[in-house]
């Protein structure tokens, strides 16, 4: 029975069902939870004011702010990118979200790519030089760094590089109202990106390094590495073609678990550096109690995270053929 259930879980269908259920859970929570609140935006705004609304006006306002109606209606609105209007900015929530999203993708994407690449190479090299002073120093330093959350590195980097040395700007993603040619614009964006990017890399890099190093040490002890050495293959080839491929597996599988930390960290880092991404949008919405924005940002980022998870499952199958053939 256990093998039967495992087979089901490793099944493609099982995977799809899991992710659909998770997506549905998030959508239902973002639909259902606000329903438990007493009153709504319309009564809150007009209840105590001099204006008396007629029944039609009230229902028109409710429809405008997208309240009432059932779960099916909500689902279709989510799918149509019609997420209601922000109470504070009085613009469509989707416009706010999509103007913030590219900055977050730029920040998080480059942070992940860079920290994965250097963390992986450093981990492989460290495992190869096991028990050397270089490896010991690296492991020690990375373990300490792993214990420093993004709030702390972010504030310290801000203090040193933005306020004391003034090498990097303390806020924003580009210089406002500047008329520049393309190259100068790219340089400007990179200049603004540097501080939040470094904070995130410092937060992600130690985890990637330690995971790669640990799994690489296990891989190096395997027999097939001994065979490869006995054949007289060059060390670089053994390290990266034979060993590193298998050492990559835990890094990818643990990625999902670490993603919870990473998302939280990215929210905080965007807030510290006032980077105009989804995290800052969410922060401002929380501060202003802007419900539709909170609701949509939470739901949309959850769905994006779920999609990333889902894609990772296939990456994992691709780099570990055992999973595929085991069935």
């Amino acid at each position, binding site marked *: *029975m*256990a093998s039967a*259930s495992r087979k089901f*879980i490793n099944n493609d269908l*099982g995977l799809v*069902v*899991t*992710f659909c*259920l*998770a997506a549905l*859970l*998030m959508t239902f*929570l*973002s639909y259902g*939870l*606000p329903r*438990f*609140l007493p009153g709504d935006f319309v009564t809150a705004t007009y209840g105590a004011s001099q204006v008396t609304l007629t029944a039609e006006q009230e229902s028109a306002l409710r429809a405008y702010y997208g309240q009432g109606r059932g779960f099916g209606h909500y689902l279709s609105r989510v799918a149509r990118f019609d997420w209601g209007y922000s109470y504070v900015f009085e613009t469509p929530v989707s416009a706010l979200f999509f103007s913030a999203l590219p900055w977050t993708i730029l920040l998080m994407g480059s942070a992940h790519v860079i920290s994965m690449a250097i963390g992986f190479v450093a981990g492989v090299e460290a495992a190869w030089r096991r028990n050397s002073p270089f490896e010991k120093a690296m492991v020690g330093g990375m*373990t*300490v760094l*792993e*214990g*420093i*959350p993004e*709030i*702390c590195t972010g*504030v310290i980097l*801000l*203090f040193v590089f933005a306020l004391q040395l003034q090498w990097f700007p303390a806020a924003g993603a580009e210089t406002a109202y500047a008329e520049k040619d393309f190259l100068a614009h790219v340089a400007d964006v990179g200049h603004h990106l540097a501080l939040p990017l470094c904070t995130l890399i410092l937060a992600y890099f130690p985890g990637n390094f*330690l995971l790669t190093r*640990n799994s690489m040490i*296990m891989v190096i002890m395997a027999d097939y590495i001994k065979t490869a050495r006995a054949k007289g293959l060059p060390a670089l080839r053994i390290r990266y073609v034979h060993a590193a491929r298998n050492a990559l597996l835990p890094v990818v*599988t*643990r990625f*999902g*678990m670490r*993603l*919870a*930390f990473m*998302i*939280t*960290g990215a*929210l*905080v880092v965007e*807030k*510290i550096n006032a980077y105009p991404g989804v995290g800052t949008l*969410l*922060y401002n919405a*929380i*501060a202003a*109690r802007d419900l539709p924005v*909170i*609701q949509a940002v*939470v*739901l949309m*980022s*959850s769905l994006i*995270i*779920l999609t990333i*998870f889902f894609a990772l499952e296939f990456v994992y199958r691709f780099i570990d053929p055992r999973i595929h053939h085991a069935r």
Partner: protein
Amino acid sequence: MHVNVHGTLRRDPWFLSGMTLSLFFLIVTLLGPLLVPFSPWNMDFIPLSPPTLTHLLGVNDGGQDIFSELVYAIRNTMIFGMISASAALFMGVLLGALAGWFGGVVDLILMRLADVLLATPAIMILILVAALFRPSPYILALILSGLMWPTIGKTIRAQTLSLKQSLHVRAARQMGGGSGYIIIRHLIPEMFPLYLIGFAAKARMAMFMEASLAFLGLMDPSRKSLGMMISYALKYYYMDIWWHWLFPPIVCLSLLIMMVTFLAISLEKVVDPRLRVNLHGRTS
């Protein structure tokens, strides 16, 4: 399941520094109210004054003693982490052992639920609940533990599956031991080192989440917390408050997270060689 855990751990510098830190923070947590010179909610002092002998870390913008705030903040973060990690551990061990022991439909349902929860981003649910209802931190801690148990549950389930086949469990079964008896007397005590790892890892996640939620302004503003102290102090970044107002909570938060990280990493190192043999494949 029998390793010389004590011998290896006693010589591990990471474990020792983790234990030293946790001893220090436990004392702060337990004796906190006795250590502070003022109530952290007392607003009688001159706002934004620099450190003096009476106010070791100065006074914040609301006229409150920063040192007292700091002690209470550490206390709150520790308590949040402990509650959340204990509840997650309890749920994970219970549900994991049940799923592994009974197998079949119970296993299928519990593990599918675990998969769904693993895929849902916990922070988003917490933000939604915290922003809408402003619940007490204890409720948030319990919600978080309800979302965090699957990693522990899956490890425990895999371990239960292999223990189920071991000789002494089969003997106990042959002699007529019931499921409840075997789970409580044989399975749960045997997996002991796994609990410590799970607890440390979840406490780390919970403290990190608490600090971040408070930093984002989602916690009760009258409740002292490290994240909120940092966020308030950052509003006065242009003043000379960095050394006595901003850095103390940053250092304390780092030390707290380091404490649980060191413990988790050192414990994992001790238990891992065997885990790798028994739990081959995906456990996360």
